[in-house]
């Protein structure tokens, strides 16, 4: 059993997929790459996949953490080759990701939201700005590590 968090992007035009469809594509892609998911118990077993927060329709993300529980060790070598257009694979870390702050950009202003307490949807509604002009640029975990493109910076 291994718990992993993988990092992907969600770029235009895939930014116009609902978050549910986005996760569905990630499940399929991971299966294509040979990942063996753990499944939930019960009547309708589903692959174990979690995401701390979802993006509103239209919002792009340069880094989207997706946590999964797998039955066997996973080699991510082929994963970049089996992703749909608009989703890129950035890398993985062991274990689940803790709750985090997300850094968003709208025009040239940046703002931080903590997930999941301050929802992005609520923010968009209050400020009345078009979601497709917002980009999730980075995330900062509670322990203070900045994960920009996973170590590129």
């Amino acid at each position, binding site marked *: 059993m291994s718990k992993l968090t993988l990092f992907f992007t969600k770029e235009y035009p895939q*930014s116009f997929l609902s978050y549910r469809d986005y996760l569905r594509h990630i499940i*399929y*892609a991971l299966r*294509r790459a040979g990942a*063996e998911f753990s499944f939930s118990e019960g009547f309708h077993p589903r692959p174990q996949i979690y995401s701390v927060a979802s993006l509103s329709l239209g919002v792009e993300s340069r880094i989207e953490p997706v946590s999964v529980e797998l039955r066997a060790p996973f080699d991510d070598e082929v994963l970049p080759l089996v992703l*749909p257009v608009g989703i890129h694979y950035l890398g993985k870390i062991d274990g689940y990701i803790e709750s985090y702050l997300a850094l968003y950009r709208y025009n040239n202003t940046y703002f931080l939201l903590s997930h999941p307490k301050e929802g992005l949807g609520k923010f968009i509604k209050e400020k009345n700005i078009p979601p497709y002009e917002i980009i999730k640029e980075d995330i900062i975990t509670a322990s203070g590590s900045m994960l920009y493109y996973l170590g590129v910076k």
Partner: protein
Amino acid sequence: MIDRLTREQLYSVKKPGRYIGKEYGGIVKEHYDVSYLSVYPDLYEVGISYFGLHIFHFMINEISWAYHDYAFVPAPDMERLMRRENIPPYGMQSYKSAVTFDVIGFHVLTEMNFTNILLFLDLAGIPLKTEDRKTGDWPLIVAGGPAISNPEPMADFIDIVFIGDGEVNIPPFLKIIKEAKKKTFPREWIIDRVYRDIPSAYIPSKYDVDFRSMEVIKLDGKFVKGARASRDEMYIPRKMLVPNIEGIQEKATVEIFRGCTRGCRYCHAGQYYRPVREIDYNQAVSVLKDIISYTGFLDAGVLSLSTMDYSAIEEFVTLLKNDSYFRDVRFTLPSLRVESLYENLLEMVDPHHSINLTIAPEVGSDRLRRVINKDFTNEHVLEAIKRLGERGWTKFKFYFMLGLPTETDDDAAEIAKMLLRADNILAILGHRKRNISATIGLFIPKPHTPFQWTAQISLDDYSRRLSIIKRMVRKRRKVTVRSHPSFISIVEGVLSRGDRRLGDVIYKAYKLGARLDAWDEHFNEDAWREAFSDIDVEAYLGYRGLGWTLPWDRIWVGMSKYHLKKDWQRAIRGEILQDCRLGCYGCGVCDFKKIYNTLVFEGRLPVIAHE
């Protein structure tokens, strides 16, 4: 190449994932001689789930000089956007405008998509009528599929209609286009060559038709016989496209066999796809594995008209069960034939994995069941429910039809009685959570079936019989009947057995705003009522004379007309026509060289209830 839709544009429509394109698994080519755009004339979720589209995409793209792309029709909000901002329909993989393709081919699975075909052509800027496309370099507009096996209502709009299996029809057609393009021959040359060389191509403009009321008094032009692929010619894709947004069906699919020879008299598919051609079960398993590793799908299923008739079903299911490759894959079960529920199979199907079980007794009385050529009885149905109930099944979906020939109000009451008895059986077994739901459809006579001469029930009669049933089951909380009369069935009835005089009617309905007619929420009843004011609807829904020439008589789909007529007379007498796997009656479909009932285990015959 057209520009991708901008963020503002995508954000302004519902479910923008429908229009993104570039589905994972699809093919883009740079160089080719002939391009073919398949259009499933309905919304994305429906069209992308149609398996024939996947067959076409991978089959045509295997030809080095041909390119295949696909498209769908937009929802009303996207249609408005496309008109406002001059966005043409485009191939989802190549982003090429529809009008730049050599061929636009429509997959027609229901008559309720006719207006969507006009919508697509209109948005693409292509003249709707064949005669207006004669000059100019317009794409060839072709169509195929069961619901256009009577192409006459669409005669004004479609250049060529292919009858039968695409595997046989399409490759020679593409070769003709390739030759024409090389020599820069005009469109008309292609159409003439297709008319001459492809025996399964129906070209409406080549036929001269005249009417006296509903009777056809003149019908000139050559006979067209539906093309059939032999088992070895059937294209079994080992890849599938992954829909961007979830389709109504999204699973690894293998077509274990094509065709059904049970001979149910109301069934159009039974005529259109006969005879039975089964593929090997080892091949079927390996195909599923390939598709799952190509797509990552979590669900798998088989495609056929009556899965339990597959002669290798036990071997196939055993192989699937014992293969660890499928441990994470959920199999979905198609509807089961009551007479096929014999013990061995019951053990293989786990009630917890197929929560809903669909049973289709079709009618409530044994007499009427003989009329439609189903040879099981009410006792068989109830016995099956008892056995399934004993094994833990508690939820049952029933499917019935009203309006079949010779039906009376008493036959309708029999439907209610069956539901009550099923409820009793499950109650005695102690299933408190039982759930019996019945869908009661309205029978629509289809061309090329033995019932093509009969009349369609009126909405008043249908409502009355429905209310008889609803009244009888009213006090049972576990029994629900979901059905409502709708003008949609009148439209479908008229179009199914229509003739080319309906071209103006369809055009008018489209202009008045009819589109997406298969969707309750989009169906525009006023537009159709207005368009129908020009024709005698009753006559189109009524009886046809046995001696008449019918508008679709130049097309031979399944049984020959002689055999259809004989079978219609058998129906009236309540006589059963046996499955032709038990003995050939020479209906004319098979040539016994390439095309015949091809089973995995030749000796294994279908389970027949009355034995």
